[in-house]
């Protein structure tokens, strides 16, 4: 069952999250993340879930961490600076092998590295999904909770002001109120006194013996898990017209939708332009980018930052074709990353200038 409605991106994601089984949400208001928190605050009590207006992002991610240990699907989120505050915990939550969905409604595209590099300390990565519009955000929200539960790892949904605040007609799965099944590893206190009480720790679940527990073995397990994620999570990508393209343009997120439209128009007027839009930013769809670039003379990367995803495009193409940056920061007085350059004629001009 699904409901068709005209919804703001924030509300659509909130409904999709609750429909996917999310029962705990917490956050600290910050534009453009705020409305997601408001919608979760309205929705979760209807299914006996909990939404908390945390006192800071540090507390928000801590509360989400605690809720996640109980096996109920938990989520939090923020925007650039707030996500920076959360990174210490996101690293530890990854090593504690806990599922958590993080909605990152970024200001512009300057936080690609923060999202995809594991912005915190330590040797870790987590899954990052970047929808281009509201319908895709609904699909990817569901996928984010599924992947988080399946792999017991944080999954970030990376959006922006456009995604959070644009109204679109969209089908959102109905919220049926059924309680999601709690997995076996979850804590509820019941193993206390059994001689083998559970522990959930970023340092592993070993027992302190005469020799102490084996921290090295735990970190080896964490490394193996990251490798398994990289190999096992299907990289998602949106590709068009790359078979005979002289120039392939790479872009992600809502900006990627503008770039895709510019490419469609240029194709209509006879230019041999193709596009590739990575949807999973980690694991990065390196093979798909390599394949898309294979017949072309050049790859151009359009991002509204100083050039971040271009590093991943260069690593994917390994020097096989020249990779040129045609983006750049785009800001207006709001500071929310809705600059004047999100503009199809401007993007088309840059693409044409980059044509080989």
């Amino acid at each position, binding site marked *: 069952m699904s409901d068709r409605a005209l919804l703001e991106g924030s509300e659509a994601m909130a409904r999709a999250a609750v429909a996917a089984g999310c029962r705990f949400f917490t956050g600290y208001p910050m534009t453009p993340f705020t409305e997601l928190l408001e919608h979760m605050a309205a929705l979760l009590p209807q299914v006996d879930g909990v939404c908390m207006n945390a006192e800071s992002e540090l*507390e928000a991610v801590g509360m989400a961490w605690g809720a996640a240990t109980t096996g109920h699907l938990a989520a939090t989120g923020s925007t650039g600076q707030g996500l920076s505050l959360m990174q210490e915990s996101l690293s530890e939550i990854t090593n504690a092998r806990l599922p958590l969905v993080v909605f990152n409604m970024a200001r512009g595209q300057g936080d690609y590295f923060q999202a995809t590099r594991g912005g915190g300390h330590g040797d870790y990565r987590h899954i990052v999904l970047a929808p281009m519009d509201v319908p895709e955000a609904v699909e990817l929200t569901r996928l984010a909770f599924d992947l988080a539960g399946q792999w017991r790892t944080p999954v970030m949904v990376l959006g922006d002001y456009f995604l959070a605040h644009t109204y679109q007609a969209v089908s959102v799965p109905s919220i049926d109120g059924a309680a999601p099944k709690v997995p076996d590893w979850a804590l509820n206190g019941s193993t*206390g006194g059994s001689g083998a009480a559970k522990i959930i720790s970023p340092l592993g679940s070993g027992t302190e013996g005469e020799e102490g527990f084996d921290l090295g073995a735990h970190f080896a397990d964490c490394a193996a898990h990251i490798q398994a994620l990289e190999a096992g999570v299907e990289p998602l990508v949106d590709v068009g017209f790359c078979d005979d393209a002289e120039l392939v343009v790479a872009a992600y997120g809502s900006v990627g939708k503008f770039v895709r439209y510019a490419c469609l128009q240029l194709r209509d007027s006879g230019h041999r332009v193709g596009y590739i839009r990575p949807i999973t930013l980690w694991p990065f769809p390196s093979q798909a980018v390599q394949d898309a670039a294979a017949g072309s003379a050049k790859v151009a990367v359009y991002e509204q930052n100083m050039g971040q995803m271009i590093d991943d495009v260069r690593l994917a193409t390994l020097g096989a074709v020249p990779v040129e940056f045609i983006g750049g920061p785009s800001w207006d007085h709001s500071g929310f990353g809705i600059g004047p350059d999100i503009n199809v004629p401007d993007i088309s001009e840059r693409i044409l200038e980059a044509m080989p």
Partner: protein
Amino acid sequence: MSDDRIFISTDEPPAESAALVDDFTPSLITQANHHLCPGCGEPIAIRAAVEAIEELELAERTIAVFGIGCYTAFAHNLDVEVVQALHGRAPSVATGVKRMLPEGFVMTIQGDGDMVNEGLQEVLHAAARGENITCLLLNNGVFGETGGQMTTTTTLGQRTKTSIEGRDPHQHGHPILLSDLAATMDGAAYVARCAVNNAGNVARTKRYITRAYESQMAGAGFSLVEILTMCPTGWFVDTLEGPDYLQDTLAPVHNIGELRTP
């Protein structure tokens, strides 16, 4: 110091092994061996905390959230369910656990560096919110795990590695008396401070912890028990001087007693 005190030489092994009178390990401690220093007060406090869980029959509904400090070693020694949190963040993690498991018994174990330095806002917000959890503060007035640096609970004049001539209010500021602060919060149901430097205080510690647990199980709101613990290694005093040093240095500032009751 009186002349009749017994000093045990640790320069050479004892001539004969100590006789085991009985096994006094609480049933909820799986491994009594630990790596904490001789004279440390934390194992005594943990023991009281665990015995109270057992006596109130809370073992099968307990989730203990650990901070980061010397006591963290016990996270892997207990037979109750444990979540290991980051330095300072245990009250938020415990909040998430408790909100999803309202029937559970949820507690935190943190030191003064963890709770009062790094995580001051967390514990105060939890108290103000009336979060129905129990926080235990093991306060020794120094960063023990890193070797005896000043924390915000270090008392004026107390010598640490980062206040060599003694804590000077003009340079290092004044100590924060956490329990006194938490007791002002309307969401706090039970706040008390005790110590483990003598038998009477150990008994009092167990009593206060039990009252805090009972307060949570009655749904009264936030509870906090601050326990002054010895850290002779971090204080740079002889092991046997720990209890007296606590009495002379910490106890006159961090006053023992119940500060807020339901």
